């Protein structure tokens, strides 16, 4: 029955092309990841049909398990807005729940951009001194540092100048008196 195999092969190739078009034109990245895992399985079966079981094993193991996982992680990291809470008062957490003014403000902001708000008050990160805050922002993925200015009582939200979200945040924070947005300039020198 060689014909059967040939028909399957053609069908799979056409399927592959359709899936490639879908991946290229689809908007939602979540769907694309599923598609790419299936795409990889289809290519693996085509490798088997092409008498290459070794390549198929490699493709199945790498292409449909590890690579999609990496995609998932990468995309989930791109949907989050990481905030480091150094203020340690009721700005974010009041009565052990997320009901503070700051939280509501940030939540409104992240919901608007379809991001996931991720707040940390990790002790080790918060112990980082004022002078190293910029370094912290640049080296880790922390997008925003919340701290309290002791003199004026204002809450300072600090982030990178280069980050486009900070500009939006700045515009949004105009309505709030207690919040001030500060951006770190890019350090512009060679070595």
């Amino acid at each position, binding site marked *: 029955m060689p014909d059967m195999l040939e028909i399957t092969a053609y069908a799979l190739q056409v399927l592959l092309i359709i899936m490639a078009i879908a991946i290229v034109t689809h908007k939602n990245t979540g769907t694309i990841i599923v598609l790419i895992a299936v795409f990889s399985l289809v290519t693996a079966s085509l490798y088997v049909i092409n008498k290459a079981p070794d390549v198929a094993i490699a493709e199945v193991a790498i292409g449909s398990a590890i690579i999609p996982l990496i995609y998932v992680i990468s995309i989930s990291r791109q949907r989050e807005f990481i905030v480091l809470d150094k203020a340690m008062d009721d700005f974010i957490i009041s009565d052990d729940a997320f009901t503070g003014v700051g939280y509501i403000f940030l939540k409104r902001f992240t919901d608007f951009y379809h991001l996931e708000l991720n707040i940390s008050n990790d002790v080790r990160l918060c112990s980082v001194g004022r002078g190293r805050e910029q370094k912290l922002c640049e080296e880790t993925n922390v997008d925003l540092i919340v701290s309290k200015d002791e003199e004026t009582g204002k809450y300072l939200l600090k982030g990178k100048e280069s980050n486009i979200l900070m500009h939006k945040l700045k515009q949004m924070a105009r309505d709030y008196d207690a919040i001030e947005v500060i951006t770190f300039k890019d*350090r512009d020198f*060679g070595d």
Partner: protein
Amino acid sequence: MHFIPVYLIFIPVLTALFLYVVKSRHMNWLALVAQALMTVLLVLYYRAFSGNYEDTMIVLGGWNEWIGISLVNDEISVSFMFLSVFSWWMVLIYTFEKGNTNHNFLFFLMFLQGVFLGLLQTNDLFNMFVFMELITILVTILIAFKKTGDAYRAGLFYLLISKVAMMMFLLSIILVYNSFGTINILLVRDAIAATDSLTVVRFSYALFMVAVMVKSAFVPLYAWLPRAHGVAQSGISALLSGLVVKGGLYLFIRLNQMYEFANLNYTDFFYWIGALTAVVGVMFALSQKDMKQILAYHTISQIGIVMMGLSKLHDPDMFIGGFLHIFNHALFKSLLFLGAGVIISAYRTKKVTDIRGVMRTMPFVSIFMIVGMLSITGAPFFNGFISKAIIKYGVIDSGVRYWILFIVNIGTATSFIKMSQIFFGPKTMTIRIRKPLKNLTLMSLAFACVMLGNFYIPISEGFFGFQVRTIDIGTWANFFDYFLALSIGYVFYRFVIAPDPKAVRYIREHKMTFQQANYLFVVMIIVLLTVFVWW
């Protein structure tokens, strides 16, 4: 003795692994020891080198050469090897004091050296592909090594566009393999000679060339280079601009040797691509204000000049001129980048307009920088002049080609007159910066520039066996030409570039996006297909 090529590849790799595993800052001198060992081995290899393919061919594993991977060396690859070992010496010494708490940096740097030497020697297309991919990954990591947003952005751009180019390279390997049943370059060369120039051969040539054009940043596929070389650390920029980009040009030479008998008339096409690259590179360089961006765009334009020479593969004078320019460019561009690195790290800014008074603050660095600038602008008695003059004599009969070279020269002069503004002005820095190792590197590079500018014939003929056209350096005509270019350049700078008109600003702010780069990639494939398949 026979296996020195293999040792040359694996000594840096093993050193890199050792440094990574040991993770001790006291072991960093090991990199220098390995480098010294490699120099010795290379000299030994050179002494036994006969220039004959049969003698230098090593088939790894001792298999049939249709199947196995073979390493092969000729004059071109051996001279490239000397250049790369020298460049790595410079970068290692330059970064030595700074990088010595960081075993990662040396790990990537040394590994890159082994891989680059492998690329130079391999005689197998797929092996070449693997090395190119390794170089891509290593260079991406080295670009992103600084961990700033710029660096990540540039690294990502470079990684993706190179990956696409290398996929085209692989596609071409597929066509070659299924046509001739082997991927050994020398055997494919013979096999191509035996067939008529079929479409499949031409198609594979076009795809190879588009990959090479991305890797060596020809216009219009240059978009990754200024970003990548502009943001990397200065030591890395020097290495990338001076040497690693030349990996693409080396592939160009090798692949064109492979297609030597395929009856492809590429000479004119690549000459004009080179001319376009040279002009566009200079045009962008003129508009920049960032010191490293200026140098990066000049890399593009100098690659264009190299290409103008290399494209005449059958005209020994032009070819040698282009080939010599690879060396000269490696020397003076490394010198300029390293010098710029010293200045930038002292002044904490990259803007040419903000740096003043370097001459009073750092006299030695300034002198070496001026040597580099004289070389790149083609002053007599410096090395840039020699290769440019050889290329110029090759095209002196045809008007337009000669004038393009002259225009590029004026542009280069203008741009470096602009950059030389940093030397003037009062002393602004009071801190004395003592960097003996950096000065040593700059000094040796400057020395090499001057040496190669005056004694190029004994060096290239006696040492590497290239027949170089003799040029009268000290004639009045040369000086007149140079000063004419300088003065036109000064006028041009004073009245057009310095006021910063709208057109200049527009060019400066023009940045190619990734889609555009890929779109041009497809366009370029079509252009190459038009030239090589349909014509």
